């Protein structure tokens, strides 16, 4: 059974790009357009990895990381921030929140898949 990845981004285009790449590589992809939607998906099933944007209306990515880490099933799940934010300050906040890594947009599809394979396979 293919590994399942939850992608969280308020941008429809980013969700589509991620879906093309990840599905093309054989992963099962569930998309969420907000932090709340992501938490709802996360509560209903387990994912092998989460890729999340930072700046989203209604709840940012760092808060989502904290909320996911508070769920027993997501204590060790790789969570990668995928965002235009690139400052060290934000990265440190990501690390403190429990994120596994930080990837700056626009992302390179091959680099993204390398990261996904490193953690998921």
């Amino acid at each position: 059974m293919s590994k399942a990845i939850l992608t969280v981004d308020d941008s429809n285009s980013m969700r589509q790009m991620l879906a093309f790449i990840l599905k093309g590589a054989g992963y099962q992809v569930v998309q969420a357009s907000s932090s709340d939607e992501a938490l709802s998906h996360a509560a209903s099933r387990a994912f092998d990895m989460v890729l999340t944007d930072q700046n989203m209306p209604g709840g940012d990515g760092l808060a989502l990381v904290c909320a996911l880490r508070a769920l027993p099933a997501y204590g060790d799940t790789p969570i990668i921030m995928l965002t235009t934010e690139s400052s060290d300050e934000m990265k440190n906040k990501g690390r403190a929140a429990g994120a596994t890594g930080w990837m700056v947009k626009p992302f390179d599809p091959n680099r993204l898949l390398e990261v996904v394979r490193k953690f998921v396979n």
Partner: protein
Amino acid sequence: MRTPSANYALPGTLGAIDALSEILSGVKRDVARSREVLNGAFGKIAARFAQVHAIAVAAEAREQGLSDEALRALRKVTDGLTIELQFEDSLSQLLDHVQGKVEAIGVALSETRTLVSAGQAGEGEPVGAALEVLARTVKSIQQAADAAVAERATACGSVELF
């Protein structure tokens, strides 16, 4: 002796504020229209991209009779497009910033208008308060603009694993 309203109740002050508000409303409509155009264009491009991407995936699975060279060329195109199509996200964020600035200026104009109107009615001395509103708005817009610039300043695609 100067009346309290003499400082600011110049002929046409309220008219000028109203005219600026009208212009701002036009900018808001332009931003909304730009967003519609962007979404429409991206939707069409994304649909084309999906077709090309599906061909590339099928070819890699050997469902299409493409040579290795053609396959590599196709993969290079789809990889490039995947990066380039992310322009929509950047542009959308820029439009969000423009919209935020326009809305902040709109609020400041509205507050200024209220203060000027009150002053013309002889209620209080609004010039200082109006300037304060404008200064606060400028500062807030500048801070937001600095943050937006910082977001786009770093080279794309860097990855850091913790």
